[in-house]
């Protein structure tokens, strides 16, 4: 067996669906039927998961550290809100795609700024873009509603068939469907040769360029795609809550997103989904203990995670599942977080 087919074989083996993944999605679907009184928070988690997955695409696969990912979320949210408010595109799915495309255009335009320079410049530029958009949204308050936000958005039935109900059931399954479809696409992308080349860039841009990968073009492509995903997440936010306000651009949103991804782990797509669940639960827990000061505990979690070390933490968490698998199936550990630190 020569090297090329060897690489191809192992890449294909990684790309295959595992039983665990199927079980994961079945559990998510089952949650939709098991907790009918919790649709709102579960929809919130799905949205956050999609948003985190979008950051994972650029952070976990391409190694771009962004402090302003909320920019695209916000553009998607306002685009969906404005489309629905002025009745330009009434059908939610079409509006969702349109909002995603709007964020994508912004992502493409700003990607040229982001690929220049080192980590530090990237941090500054992404942060600056999000702040700039927030200032713009505040400035043009006749369009965006300023600090009051967009109000009085009425959503039409999905595909003209299923209306949004007040318990959020339709919203939940709508969000779940969108998340799953986008997940399938992202999964396909990261396991393709394109996705493998992104990992090569993340590990060593210089070496990647030397073996003939067009580094800048790949980074622009994935950044644009991630912007599309974030835009969709923002549009889902507006469509399921029927509001869009200035805080969609807030720095805290970008910072929280980082925490979500760090809790879940980067570079295997499920990190965002798992992180979103844990993050929301932590948030609920902290705000029941200290309603006003939950941010303190969130901060503490971040500090502890970094001090302990992300990889070590994930090893600890996976220790018990791996032990069980070892005992029951008699195999060596199969559950692992394929995380390479940048």
């Amino acid at each position, binding site marked *: 067996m020569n090297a090329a087919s060897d690489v191809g074989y192992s890449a294909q083996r990684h790309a295959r669906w595992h039983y665990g993944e199927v079980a994961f999605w079945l559990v998510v679907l089952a949650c939709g039927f098991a907790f009918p009184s919790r649709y709102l928070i579960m929809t919130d988690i799905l949205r956050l998961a999609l948003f985190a997955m979008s950051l994972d695409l650029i952070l976990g696969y391409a190694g771009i*550290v962004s402090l302003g990912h909320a920019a695209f979320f916000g553009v998607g949210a306002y685009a969906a809100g404005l489309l629905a408010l002025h009745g330009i595109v009434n059908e939610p799915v079409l509006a969702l795609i349109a909002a995603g495309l709007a964020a994508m255009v912004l992502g493409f335009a700003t990607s040229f*700024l982001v690929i220049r320079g080192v980590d530090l410049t990237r941090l*500054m*530029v992404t942060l*600056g873009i999000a702040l700039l958009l927030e200032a*713009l949204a505040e*400035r043009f308050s006749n369009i965006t509603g300023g600090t009051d936000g967009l109000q009085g958005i009425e959503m039409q039935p999905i595909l003209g068939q299923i209306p949004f109900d007040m318990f959020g059931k339709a919203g939940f399954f709508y969000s779940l469907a969108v998340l799953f479809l986008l997940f399938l696409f992202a999964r396909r992308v990261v396991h393709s040769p394109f996705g493998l080349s992104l990992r090569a860039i993340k590990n060593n841009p210089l070496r990647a360029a030397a073996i003939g990968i067009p580094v800048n073009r790949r980074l622009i492509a994935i950044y644009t795609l991630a912007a599309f995903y974030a835009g969709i997440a923002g549009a889902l936010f507006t469509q399921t809550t029927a509001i869009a306000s200035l805080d969609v651009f807030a720095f805290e949103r970008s910072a929280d997103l980082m925490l979500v991804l760090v809790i879940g782990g980067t570079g295997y797509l499920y990190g965002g989904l798992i992180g979103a669940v844990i993050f929301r639960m932590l948030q609920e827990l902290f705000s029941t203990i200290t309603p006003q000061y939950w941010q303190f505990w969130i*901060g503490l979690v971040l500090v502890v995670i970094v001090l302990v070390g992300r990889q070590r933490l994930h090893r600890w968490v996976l220790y018990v599942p791996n032990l069980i698998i070892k005992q029951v199936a008699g195999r060596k550990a199969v559950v692992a977080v394929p995380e390479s630190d940048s």
Partner: protein
Amino acid sequence: MTAILTNLFDGVAYGMLLFVLACGLAVTLGLMNFVNLAHGAFAMAGGYVCMVLVNRMGWPFFAALPLAFVSSAAIGIALERTLYRHLYARSHLDQVLFTIGLTFMSVAAVDYIQGSSRVFINLPAALQGQFDLFGVGIGRYRLMIIVICGLLTVGLQMVLAKTRFGSRLRAAVDDPRAASGLGINVPQVFAFTFAFGCGLAGLGGALSAEILGLDPYFPLKFMIYFLIVVTVGGSSSITGPFLASLLLGIGDVAGKYYVPKMGPFVIYTMMIVILIWRPNGLFGRTAAR
């Protein structure tokens, strides 16, 4: 004409203040290549210490200022020895996460202890009001800021350029390995510099309560300003950040006065354009290695 001069004066005072607040960050971020987003938290600590001393315990304002410096520096050195020093070699992502976490904690902690509303420091009567100089309105408080910050800047430049410690620091930054080979205790130099930078931030925080406003959200609100000063100014000397903060101060005051509707828009656009044009800052060799 006089309005322009008054604006210029205010802008210079604002810029000087930003320089004192941010020059500690210029060292950690620019020289030690550590992304410290929690820098504003040290400034806030100094501001609150000064507020408590002056308002609650009746200290004179000028006696409380040095204590603001000392307390922030003490917090800085404690955190540097216990937490920060483990993270120097980590990735930027880890540093960002860690310092964001610290910022969140400081915001919530101050909110818990002192309440979330804006606080004011009682100023002595000699510092209030303004006087006319050839028809230009000069605020007494702002004049004091320019004097204090100007002296500090000159002093810093002297220390960095002329003293033994200054040359050690420059050597440690240029090439840590060669410097430690020559017998310079690099971690000690860094720790001392870090603490000094935090102390300056604390002093700046105490001075800025009157002009920028002091509330628990201070670290988040002004983080971007500090970062702009450092990234735009570069890090080869302290002249770069100094000029950058003057530029930022004058630009911001003028922007708010002449095009109030554009708000902070001008500053952010300027920053992005400058970073695209020169990714390593206007005056810098390299912002990061």
